[in-house]
Each structure stands twice: as structure tokens, then as C-alpha cells.
């Protein structure tokens, strides 16, 4: 299987954290090439590549950059903000990109900054990513010494544990020193983003791929992958597979081949029950759908789901789908920022109803109520966090209705305590009885 490596080019499966080694394999030549062009010509290359955002929404990167007004149109500083807050359950690709190709990523930051005529880059990196922060800090210091920054400042800003800060407007709020709660749109960040100035917000992988696009040329890049989903993607494979990990593959790669060939199949000789194809917020797929799916926008959209953050979670036949719903819903409930009522109340409500079904306390009407609450969240909030819960949970009911029904009919879980997610503990607040004593 010849898989072109674009994001992880020149790494031989390892990490390139030494600047001399990076330069020896053509490092910073894409930046040099970009700076020899006009900013608009760089954007044209991105348009030609048809690169679309890797953060989840799949928005064309070149188009996003072209929305940022020219300096003569808005006389405020322009900003590039890189979203390195990676926290969608199942997703762990940006982390590997930062660890293995930090210079390629930072070179992309400089290319993007040049294209939108910005001198100020902020990288908002997930607080839990300590090692990744250190790698970037050291790489930045090396670039500073080599004088490749060209008058651009790159500030690493560490998050502090809040999934919602991955949503771009919440991220901007957080970066401005406020609680990470989403803003109303419009205005969009391109016009009024960080400090109400023109801002492009991009994902780590989008930015890293921009380096490759400038290296190869947009037209060449667009030859990889499939129409509407050009290029490669770093897929995060996890769950009940033999070989979990990140795999860079061209878009359009068959989902079943990712699971059974690249991933070595389902662990412990079990049977596949379901696949979450694009992070925990996406519609679940049945094994029959997995057979047909390819990993690209069009295929997954036609199956009613989404490529999302390209996080593929394989689930074997030991998992109770109601328990899966509970755990997913607990996550969104815990991470809701509380600003919009349908999300704050609805995610909690979903968890409660699902728990009732799991415990065998639910009446038939509770199943209807569950779907009704999903409907009352969908599209009614400032950001899609609550939607994610509703979409995921409604899809479990839709695809595994018999199993939900069996819980109601049998007065409890048909897996009788043997589910792989049985009693899995969701995070609870820290409590400190022991310390009260210590301080008394």
C-alpha cells in the first residue's frame, strides 16, 4: 500500500525536532517560496489545492484566508490563531503532528501569517499537552536563533482544561482572558476575531498541510485524495482494534481497510458492532455501512454522518449502546459552558433519561422523550456542542433501536453486566475530606 506522506513527509516514521535536520530535508523552503510571492498568490495556491479545514468543519482554507480583510481595509493588527486545543474524544492527531513535525507546523504558521498579512501568531495549545508544549517552545527558540521568523511573533498560549475552548469563538474569548464561552456569529473572526481585529483561526493539521501545499504546489496537492476531499488526512484510529494509532492516508481510503488492514482488525477476535467515524460528535455507523464507506466528505455525508475530526472509533460486540450514549452524554454535559439553556439543561437531561433506560426504570414514553430532547437541543444554541450530544445519541437510538427497546422490555441491560463500558466512571469533582483534616 503506497501511502503518500504529506503531513509527516521526511520523517521516516520518527520525529524531526532538530532544526539542522529539518533544513537538510528542504525545511523552510516552502516559506521562502511563499515570501517570494505576493500574499494573494499564496492564497491562490491554497485555493488550487482545495485544502479544507482539518479541525472538523472542513471549510476551505484558502477561502478562509481570503475573507481576512487587507491591512488597508481595516487598519488594525491582523492575527493568526492556531487551534491546538484538540479535545474531541477519539482525536489525537494534532498532538502527534506537534511532536513529530514541529518545524513543519511552525513553518505553516509563518506561511499562513504571511498570506493574511499578519505579524502576530497565537497558538492555543491544550493545557494537558505538556510535552507537546515543550517541543514547540524549543523549536520556536531554535527558529528564533536561525532568524527565520521574519519579524513575526509566535506566542504559545496554554489552555487549562475546557473542551469548549476548541470552538473558535470560545477559544478567542479564552485567549482574551475571559471564560471560554462562544460568541454570537456574525461577526465572524475573519472580520472581528481576536481583540475585535481580523483573525484567521485554523487547526494544527490544516496549517501543517499548508506547508506541503506550498512545497508541492496546489495543483499537485489536489491530485491526491478524491474530488471534494483532496490530499491526505491523519486519521486517529482507536477503540477495539489491534493497532490503534494515527495513520496518514489519502482521503477516499476505504473505512473497512483502515480498520481491518491498517488497524489489524478487531482485537481479541471479537466482532465489529459499530464505528464512530469522525469523533464522538458524529453519527454512528453499522457494520453494513462501514463496508460501503470511504473516508472522505462525500461518502460520509451521503451516509448521514461526517468526517469531522477524522477520529475513527471501532466498537466491538461487547459494548452496550445505551452505556455508550451515557458516557458520550456525560462528556458533553460536563463540557457544556452553560451559556445556552438547551445545551446546559438538555445534555444533563439526556444523560438522566439514558441512565433510566440503562437501569431498567424507563417506560416506553422515555424513549420518545429522549428523542424529543435531542430535537429541542439541535440548532438552538450559539455553538454546536449540545448538537454533538444530540446527534450522537439520536444516532445510537436510530441504528440500534432494538437494543434500546430491549432495555425497556427486559427492565434492564440485555448484556447483563458484561458490557465493555459497564459502570465506567465519568469524572467527578475532586473532594477533599482528607485535606480538611490536614488543615484543621
Amino acid at each position, binding site marked *: 500500500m503506497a501511502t503518500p506522506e504529506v503531513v509527516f513527509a521526511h520523517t521516516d516514521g520518527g520525529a524531526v525536532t532538530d532544526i539542522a535536520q529539518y533544513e537538510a530535508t528542504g525545511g523552510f523552503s516552502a516559506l521562502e517560496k511563499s515570501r517570494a510571492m505576493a500574499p494573494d498568490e499564496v492564497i491562490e495556491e491554497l485555493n488550487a489545492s482545495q485544502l479544507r479545514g482539518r479541525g472538523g468543519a472542513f471549510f476551505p482554507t484558502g477561502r478562509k484566508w481570503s475573507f481576512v480583510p487587507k491591512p488597508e481595509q481595516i487598519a488594525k493588527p491582523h492575527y493568526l490563531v492556531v487551534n491546538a486545543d484538540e479535545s474531541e474524544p477519539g482525536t489525537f492527531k494534532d498532538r502527534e503532528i506537534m511532536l513529530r513535525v514541529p518545524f513543519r507546523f511552525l513553518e505553516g504558521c509563518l506561511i499562513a501569517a504571511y498570506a493574511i498579512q499578519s505579524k502576530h501568531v497565537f497558538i492555543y495549545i491544550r493545557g494537558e499537552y505538556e510535552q507537546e508544549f515543550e517541543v514547540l517552545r524549543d523549536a520556536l527558540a531554535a527558529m528564533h536563533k536561525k532568524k527565520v521568523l521574519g519579524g513575526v511573533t509566535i506566542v504559545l498560549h496554554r489552555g487549562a482544561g475546557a473542551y469548549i475552548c476548541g470552538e473558535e469563538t470560545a477559544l478567542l474569548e479564552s485567549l482574551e*482572558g475571559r471564560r*471560554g464561552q462562544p460568541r454570537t456569529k456574525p461577526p465572524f473572526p475573519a472580520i472581528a476575531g481576536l481583540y475585535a481585529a481580523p483573525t484567521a483561526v485554523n487547526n494544527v493539521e490544516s496549517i501543517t498541510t499548508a506547508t506541503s501545499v506550498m512545497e508541492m504546489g496546489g495543483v499537485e496537492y489536489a491530485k491526491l485524495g478524491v474530488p471534494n476531499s483532496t490530499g491526505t488526512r491523519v486519521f486517529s484510529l482507536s477503540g477495539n482494534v489491534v493497532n490503534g494509532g494515527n495513520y496518514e492516508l489519502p482521503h477516499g481510503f476505504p473505512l473497512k481497510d483502515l480498520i481491518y488492514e491498517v488497524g489489524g482488525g478487531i482485537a481479541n477476535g471479537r466482532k465489529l458492532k459499530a464505528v464512530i467515524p469522525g469523533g464522538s460528535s458524529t453519527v454512528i455507523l453499522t457494520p453494513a455501512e462501514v463496508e460501503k464507506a470511504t473516508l472522505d466528505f462525500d461518502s460520509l455525508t451521503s451516509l448521514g454522518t461526517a468526517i469531522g475530526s477524522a477520529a475513527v472509533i471501532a466498537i466491538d460486540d461487547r459494548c452496550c449502546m445505551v452505556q455508550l450514549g451515557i458516557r458520550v452524554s456525560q462528556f458533553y454535559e460536563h463540557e457544556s459552558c452553560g451559556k445556552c439553556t438547551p445545551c446546559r439543561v438538555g445534555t444533563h437531561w439526556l444523560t438522566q433519561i439514558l441512565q433510566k433506560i440503562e437501569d431498567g426504570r424507563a417506560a416506553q414514553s422515555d424513549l420518545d422523550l429522549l428523542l424529543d430532547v435531542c430535537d429541542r437541543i439541535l440548532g438552538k444554541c450559539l455553538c454546536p456542542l449540545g448538537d454533538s450530544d444530540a446527534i450522537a445519541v439520536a444516532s445510537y437510538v436510530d441504528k440500534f433501536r432494538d437494543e434500546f427497546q430491549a432495555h425497556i422490555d427486559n427492565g434492564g441491560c440485555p448484556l447483563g453486566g458484561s458490557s465493555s463500558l459497564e459502570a465506567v466512571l465519568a469524572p467527578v469533582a475532586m473532594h477533599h475530606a*482528607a*485535606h480538611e483534616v490536614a488543615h484543621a
Partner: protein
Amino acid sequence: MTALFERIQEIRRRYPDELSAVMPALQAAQVEHGGWLPREAFREVADALDLTPAYCLSIASFYDMFRLEPVGETVVEVCTNISCGLAGAQGVVEAFERELGLHAGETSADGKFSLRAVECLGGCGWATIVAVNNRHRLRVSAADVPALAAELRGEVSNGDA
């Protein structure tokens, strides 16, 4: 205290607007205070940034990594989100509970350990992920926990446990 003040002034200079410095300033204060934010930390950060302690608390209380109460010297966090859950994270949590004599969410009376269950740590393909003071251990199974706990207690664990 003055060292922290100086440190925060340095942080402040990185941002066009000083309010942006509140989060990194709280992070610095938390390190200074041994991993959590006592009352006086909010006063220190507020003074250094011309804010109010109440504002600083409103920020700290929003984010999971700011601790408003003392934590153990070693904080053990086990991811129990979907992928880790499917790989047996609950067994890992229970094994740590036995080994450390703590329930998830608790800190030991001697202040040495805190144990928590946490949301996805971004290592799902290498489940179960256990973060020890933010450093990730990959592919931890319940069977690995006794040896890992012994290592964290400072007992030599060169051989197989």
C-alpha cells in the same frame, strides 16, 4: 511573591491586551503554590494585573486544570472516555483505587496522591491513558497498575513486579 509578580509582568508583555495574561498568570501562581490556588494566589494575580481577585477566581473556576483545593504531590489521572473505556479504563481506575487506597476524586491524607477519572486526554489509540502529573503513560492495563503504583510510591521497580 515578588518573583511571581515579576514573572507575571513578563507574561503580560507577550500580549497586546493585558487581560490575556490572566490564564498564564494563574498557571504560574498555581505552580508557585504547589499545584493549587489558595485564596492569596488570587490576590497576587489580581495585584500583578490590576484586576480583582473575584475576576481571577471567575476564570479559575471555569477551567478544569485550575485547582481550588490542595492536590497531592502526585496526581494520577485516568482517562475514562470512550476509547479508553472500551479498552478497560474502569479496571485501571479500580486498580489504582485499591493500590492507593483512594476513591477517584480523592487526595490521600498524607497529601502524597490524588486520583481522578478524567475526560479524553488525546491518546485514544494508545488506551488506556494515565497521566501522572501531566506526563502520559500509554497502554496501561489493570494488570500494570501495581507496578506503576509501586514506582510512584518511590519503591524501586527495576525488575518485574
